[in-house]
């Protein structure tokens, strides 16, 4: 186990070089996370869970430089009526943010509560993350819990009138940012969370979402389109009875992205959908890693991931459905598909089903393909130039993932954003 030793050494070296926060209501969770990280070690390139994605740049002592890009267009969700919270290179920007008050919810920043001894988020912060560490270790999430100094804490007691939109801005070529968010969705409440923008040169993001019975959580995020950024995100969620979780992520470029989503269906008749659409061109490595545990009756889970790749871009999908012994009548489905626009790009998929209940419906599918030449000719024969026709077919390919977005206005906002990004790439 020389590699484990090496990983543990790497963690020690890395931890020696940084200072960790001290005290407050998160102290216990941070101490536990620190201990976890010290025994897990940082991910190494020989770890099975990192087989398709090299973690080196995510674990290195200093973040690789990423020059911020200027984008003329507004952010994806800027025009929507939402409460805006802006972080510039991980630092809260009070001028650009709205007043953090919205009826039905309590909205705080982790940094502003750091000194408190007690807090409502204590039973969640680092706790869902810890639960998601078995059976597979997620050291970068432990690292996040141990060192995060800011993030948003949202307690949803009743359905608010509008969504909360977290906007990330990247200005500093050397920024290395850790943010940790907690959302608690109360019984019967519905909450929409939006996230958009490139956050930093390197960004470690954790979002923990605890959904009570009959609660609904809708999450839409758009990462990018900056080229040079490194990004690792972990989304941990626990679902109560008849609750709903839906999360969609749009990814565009970025040097390295690893999005992990760990879902635990603990209440009967709950529904969890996680979806993603990614477009990558050139130096682009995009990894979606999903782990869904069915631990209750009649729950439904969906994983729908689509990636469009060209010029050597690499897409990865690791998706697992675990159905525990008593999770009868489980309905689980996963699909991962790639559209390879040239011969240089690759898509690596590892679908996994592990089922211990005997009365379930679970299926998975994965495909890789090129643009349909007949469809392309049909469009061109009607006068549509080849690049526009290719974009039309690309959007058509991604449409199934976009359908997973519950709100029509958000779905079209994401669709329009994709069109703009594709058009920019053309010009």
């Amino acid at each position, binding site marked *: 186990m020389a590699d484990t030793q090496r990983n543990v050494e790497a963690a020690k070296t890395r931890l020696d070089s940084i200072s960790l926060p001290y005290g407050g209501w998160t102290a216990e969770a941070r101490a536990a996370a620190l201990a976890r990280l010290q025994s897990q070690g940082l991910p190494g390139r020989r770890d099975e869970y990192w087989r398709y994605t090299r973690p080196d740049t995510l674990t290195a002592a200093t973040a690789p430089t990423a020059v911020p890009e200027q984008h003329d267009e507004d952010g994806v969700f800027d025009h929507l009526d939402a409460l805006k919270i802006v972080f510039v290179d991980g630092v809260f920007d009070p001028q650009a943010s709205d007043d953090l008050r919205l009826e039905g919810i309590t909205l705080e920043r982790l940094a502003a509560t750091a000194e408190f001894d007690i807090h409502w988020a204590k039973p969640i912060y680092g706790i869902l993350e810890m639960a998601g560490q078995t059976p597979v270790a997620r050291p970068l999430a432990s690292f996040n819990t141990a060192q995060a100094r800011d993030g948003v804490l949202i307690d949803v007691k009743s359905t608010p009138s509008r969504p909360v939109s977290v906007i990330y801005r990247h200005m500093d070529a050397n920024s290395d940012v850790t943010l940790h968010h907690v959302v608690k969705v109360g019984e019967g409440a519905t909450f929409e969370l939006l996230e958009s923008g490139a956050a930093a040169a390197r960004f470690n993001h954790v979002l923990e979402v605890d959904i009570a019975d009959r609660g609904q959580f809708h999450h839409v995020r758009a990462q990018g389109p900056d080229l040079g950024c490194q990004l690792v995100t972990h989304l941990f969620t626990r679902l109560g009875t008849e609750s709903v979780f839906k999360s969609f992520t749009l990814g565009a470029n970025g040097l390295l992205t690893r999005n992990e989503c760990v879902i635990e269906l603990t209440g009967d008749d709950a529904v969890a959908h996680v979806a993603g659409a990614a477009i990558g061109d050139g130096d682009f490595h995009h990894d979606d890693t999903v782990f869904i545990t069915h631990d209750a009756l009649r729950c439904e889970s969906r994983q729908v991931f689509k990636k469009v790749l060209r010029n050597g871009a690499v897409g990865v999908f690791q998706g697992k459905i675990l159905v525990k012994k008593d999770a009868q009548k489980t309905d689980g489905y996963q699909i991962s598909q790639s559209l390879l626009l040239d011969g240089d790009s690759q898509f690596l998929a590892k679908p996994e089903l592990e089922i211990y209940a005997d009365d379930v419906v679970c299926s998975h599918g994965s495909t890789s393909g090129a643009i349909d030449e007949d469809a392309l*000719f049909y*469009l061109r*024969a*009607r*006068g549509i130039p080849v690049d526009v026709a290719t974009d039309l077919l690309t*959007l058509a390919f991604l449409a199934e993932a976009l359908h997973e977005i519950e709100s029509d206005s958000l779905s079209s906002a994401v669709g329009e954003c994709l069109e703009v990004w594709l058009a920019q790439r053309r010009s």
Partner: protein
Amino acid sequence: MLEIKDLKASLADEDKQILKGVNLTVEAGKVHAIMGPNGSGKSTLSYVLSGKDGYEVTGGSVALDGKDILEMEPEERAAEGLFLAFQYPIEIPGVGNMVFMRTAVNAQRKARGEDEMSATEFLKVVRARAKTLKIDADMLKRPVNVGFSGGEKKRNEILQMAMLEPKMCILDETDSGLDVDAMKLVAEGVNALRDEGRAFLVITHYQRLLDHIKPDLVHIMADGRIIKTGGPELALEVEQNGYADILAEVA
């Protein structure tokens, strides 16, 4: 309008010659029909004219209004006014029929340096033209040809033709897979577009379509060449006697 001279083409992969010197001139305002036995090269001619990949032109020329089109991309040929109604229209899941048609109309306008059509203007025109082809609003909203019946796909082709207003229309076995009523509807759609400035090349197996779309000239194609040209009565002769007599005659 369309001038095909000694056109020779083979399959790019197989080095098998399919068109062996096609000569054909279609004047503006005219309807020409091409009939011929299976494997005579009719569909290949339509693909070579519209610029599909997989065919290699080994000789001859094709001019549309005096412009050589063989070096043009398919979309450039379309913008020049060439239209192919497909024998098997392609289903494109995820692309809305309306978006597809508007993108096509405006791409062609842009290529010709004309003003693009606004969404509302387009909607008005497409609704009116769809109505005469009995294409309902639902078909316009659905993805291109997905879940369409054979007849609906062919009517959708004619609707695209009506929207794009091409100069030179090639109809590749537009009657295949249609029942009598559907064929009539399609033919009416085509006839409505007949115009002094527009020409048609109708490729068909059966004379019946030509009862509805009356041709000025009928060409018989066999083994990669036009072997006989005549009036509409030539189509009747084929219907009654098959191709054997004609083939024997020229052999």
